[in-house]
C-alpha cells in the first residue's frame, strides 16, 4: 500500500481584508490539479465509512475515484444519482461532522476534503459541461405529488419523486425557489446563481414550480389532496424568527436575522438603490447568537460597511454552534466576539432608535440537558455596549400557517410537525413532512436527507 498522504490540499480563499468589503464568494474552489491531488489521497478503503456519514448516502469513494481517473462526467453521474444539489452541499454541508468525520483518514486528522471535491465536481459540470445532463426519466406513473416549499428538503423530495416518474408540483411562497438557500445564506458563502442552477436542474426533471403560492392562504393541504394530488410533502422549513421577548426589542434598528438576511440576500439590498429594497447599516452592530446564521449576519453587516461588528454569545467559544470554518472566517475578517455575554435590555433614544445594549457577563455552570455547560448570570455584572443596530439570530421555528390550516396534523409545543423519522410520514393520511418543519432549524443536508427518506416512502405508497 502506498504511504498515506496526510497533507490536505488547501482550498484558495479571498484574503480576509479584501473579502470583508465585497459579496463575492469567499472560497474560490479547487483547480483540476488540486482536485486530482486531493482525490489521490483517498485510500479507497473497503469500509466506505464516509458513505455512512452522508445523510443522503452519496457513493463518495466512487466519485472520488472518477476524479482521480479524470472521468469528470462519471464523477457527476455518481454524485447526482444521490444528490440533486451538489454545488450547494459542497459549500454549506458541515462535512467536518458528517462524511469527513467518518473518513478513515480522520483518525490521522487529515480526512479527505470531500466537501471541496463535491463542490469541484458540481462547478465543473456547471462551468465546463454546459447545461446539466438530465438522467433518463422512467415512464410517468400518472401520480401527482404536491411539494410545499422549495428549500433543500422540498427540492430533494421533488427531484427524487420526478426521477421515479411521478408528476411533481412545488408550491413556493416567495418569488424565487430555493427557500433558505436564497433568502438566508449570503452570496459570499453560497452564490445565488449556483442555487438557481440547481433549482433549474430540478425543474429540468419535469418538476413544476409555482412561485408566489402561499399554501394555506391559497389552496390548503386538504384542497390540494382533493384537487388531484395523490400525496403531499411538507418542506416549509422553520421560517418564524425567535426574539428575546424584551419590550425594548421593537426599537428601530433591531432586526431579526431573517429580516436582515432576507433584505440583503433575497432582495439584494446590498445593491440599493439599484435594487429597490433598502437595509439599515449601523456603524456599531451587535449580532446576538452563535450559530451559522449569526456568522452570516455579522459578515453581511461588515460587508455593508459597519465600522464594528460584535457577535454576542452567552456561552464560550467552544460551545459556538456555528461551523468552525465560518467562525474562523468571521474572526479573520475582524468580527469582535464577545463570549459569555447576554443582553439584558436594549436602550433607545426618543426617536425609538436603538443606541445601546445592556448586557450581563455570564459564567458557565453545570451542564444542561443539551450537555453543554449552562450559562449563568454574574450578578451585578451589567455593562453597556454602544450599538446602533442589533441583529437577533437566536433561531427560528416553523411558520404556524400550515399547521393551523391543516386539520389532522400532529404538532409539538415547539410548533414542529410530528413525522416518522424512518419514513417522513405524518399522522395525516397522504401527508409527509421533512426538514426544519419537523426538526426545527437544522442543516441543509439533514433537510435533504429527510426529503430523500420521505420521497422513498411516498413512492412506496404511490406504487403500493
Amino acid at each position, binding site marked *: 500500500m502506498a504511504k498515506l498522504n496526510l497533507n490536505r490540499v488547501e482550498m484558495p480563499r479571498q484574503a480576509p481584508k479584501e473579502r470583508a468589503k465585497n459579496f463575492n464568494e469567499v472560497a474560490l474552489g479547487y483547480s483540476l490539479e488540486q482536485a486530482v491531488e486531493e482525490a489521490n489521497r483517498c485510500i479507497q478503503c473497503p469500509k466506505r465509512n464516509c458513505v455512512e456519514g452522508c445523510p443522503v448516502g452519496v457513493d463518495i469513494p466512487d466519485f472520488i475515484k472518477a476524479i482521480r481517473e479524470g472521468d469528470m462526467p462519471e464523477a457527476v453521474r455518481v454524485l447526482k444519482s444521490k444528490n440533486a444539489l451538489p454545488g450547494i452541499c459542497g459549500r454549506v454541508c458541515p462535512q467536518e461532522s458528517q462524511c469527513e468525520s467518518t473518513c478513515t483518514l480522520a483518525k490521522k486528522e487529515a480526512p479527505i476534503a470531500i466537501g471541496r471535491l463535491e463542490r469541484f465536481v458540481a462547478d465543473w459540470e456547471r462551468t465546463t459541461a454546459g447545461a446539466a445532463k438530465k438522467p433518463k426519466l422512467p415512464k410517468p406513473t400518472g401520480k401527482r405529488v404536491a411539494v410545499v416549499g422549495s428549500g433543500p428538503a422540498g427540492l430533494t423530495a421533488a427531484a427524487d419523486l420526478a426521477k421515479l416518474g411521478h408528476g411533481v408540483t412545488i408550491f413556493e411562497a416567495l418569488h424565487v425557489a430555493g427557500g433558505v438557500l436564497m433568502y438566508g445564506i449570503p452570496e459570499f458563502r453560497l452564490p445565488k446563481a449556483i442555487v438557481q442552477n440547481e433549482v433549474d436542474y430540478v425543474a429540468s426533471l419535469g418538476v413544476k414550480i409555482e412561485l408566489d403560492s402561499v399554501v394555506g*392562504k391559497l389552496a390548503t393541504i386538504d384542497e390540494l389532496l382533493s384537487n388531484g394530488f395523490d400525496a403531499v410533502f411538507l418542506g416549509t422549513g422553520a421560517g418564524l424568527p425567535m426574539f428575546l421577548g424584551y419590550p425594548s426589542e421593537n426599537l*428601530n434598528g433591531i432586526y431579526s436575522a431573517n*429580516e436582515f438576511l*432576507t433584505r440583503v440576500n433575497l432582495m439584494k439590498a446590498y445593491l*440599493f*438603490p439599484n435594487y429597490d429594497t433598502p437595509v439599515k447599516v449601523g456603524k456599531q452592530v451587535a449580532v446576538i447568537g452563535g450559530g451559522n446564521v449569526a456568522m452570516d449576519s455579522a459578515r453581511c453587516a461588515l460587508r455593508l460597511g459597519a465600522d464594528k461588528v460584535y457577535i454576542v454569545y452567552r456561552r464560550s467559544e467552544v460551545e459556538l454552534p456555528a461551523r468552525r470554518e465560518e467562525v474562523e472566517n468571521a474572526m479573520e475578517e475582524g468580527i469582535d466576539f464577545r463570549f459569555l455575554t447576554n443582553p439584558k435590555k436594549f436602550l433607545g433614544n426618543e426617536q*425609538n432608535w436603538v443606541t445601546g445594549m445592556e448586557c450581563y457577563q455570564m459564567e458557565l455552570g453545570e451542564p444542561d440537558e443539551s450537555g453543554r455547560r449552562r450559562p449563568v448570570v454574574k450578578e451585578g455584572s451589567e455593562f453597556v455596549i454602544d450599538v446602533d443596530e442589533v441583529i437577533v439570530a437566536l433561531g427560528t421555528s416553523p411558520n404556524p400557517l400550515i399547521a393551523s390550516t391543516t386539520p389532522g396534523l400532529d404538532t409539538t409545543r415547539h410548533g414542529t410537525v410530528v413525522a416518522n423519522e424512518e419514513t417522513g410520514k405524518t399522522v395525516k393520511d397522504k401527508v409527509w413532512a421533512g426538514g426544519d418543519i419537523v426538526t426545527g432549524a437544522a442543516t441543509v443536508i439533514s433537510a435533504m436527507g429527510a426529503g430523500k427518506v420521505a420521497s422513498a416512502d411516498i413512492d412506496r405508497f404511490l406504487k403500493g
Partner: protein
Amino acid sequence: MYKILAKKGLVPQIHLFRVAAPAVAKKARAGQFVVVRIDQKGERIPLTIADWDEKEGTVTIVFMEVGATTARLARLGAGDSIADFVGPLGLPTEIEKFGTVVCVAGGVGAAPVAPIARELKKAGNRVITILGARSRELLFWEDVLKSASDKMIVTTDDGSYGRKGVVTEPLKELLAGGEKVDRVIAIGPVVMMKFCALTTLPFKVKTMVSLNPIMVDGTGMCGCCRVAVGGETKFACVDGPDFDGHQVDWDLMAARQRIYLGEEKCAYEEWRKSHPA
C-alpha cells in the same frame, strides 16, 4: 407575471388596478392584502385588497403614490404586467352581525373599507360610513361606500365638500348623540386611526384598525412588521392586519414607519430625476 387588465386614476396620486390573479381572487376576503413586486429589482410592498371578482379571476388594488415604488407602479397601465402578486395574506376582517357598525375611511383608506362595509351590510349590520379626505379633489368612492351604507357622512379638512373638519368629529357626535354603536372600523393614515381609537375609547366601543407597517415577505418570516398590541409584540402580516385600536402602541407604530425615511426619500428623488413629472 400578473397582467393589469384595467387602470383608473381615481384622484390625483391615487390609482386603481384590476389585476388578473385568479388564484388570489378565489380566496380573497375583506381586510386581506397582497404583496406586490413590480419587477426583478423591485421591493415587496403590501397593498390592501380593494375588491375581487372570483368569476372574472381579478383582484382590485388601490394605491397612493408616496415613494419610488408606488410612483413606478403608477406608470404601469392596462396590458402591462407585475412580476409578483402574492396573497391573499393576513387574516380577513371579522365579519358578523354586530348591530350598528361605523366604518371610518380616511383618504386612500376608502378602498379597503369598501369591501368591509359591503360584507358587514350583507351580514345584516346597520352600516354608517364616515368618509374623510383633505379636500374634494382627493375624495373617491363616495358612491361605492354609499351603496354599502345605511348612512353616509363625508368630511373634508378644508370644507371644499361635505362637512368641514376631520372624521373624528362626526364619529364623536354619533357616539355622544346616543346612537348605539356596536363596533367601529377605522382605516386610513396612522394618525387618523389613532385619533379614531382615542375618540371611541371613552365610549368603550370596540374599534378595529387595519395596520399597514413596512413588510418584506408578508408571511410571518421576517418580523419587520412587528407592532405592539396590548403590550405584546405581534406581526401585522400574520396576526393582523386588523387589531384592536385601543390596544395598539401608536407611537411605536409611527416610529417604525419612519425607519427607512432617508432611503425612501433618496430613492424617490433619484426616480424623480429620471422621470420628471
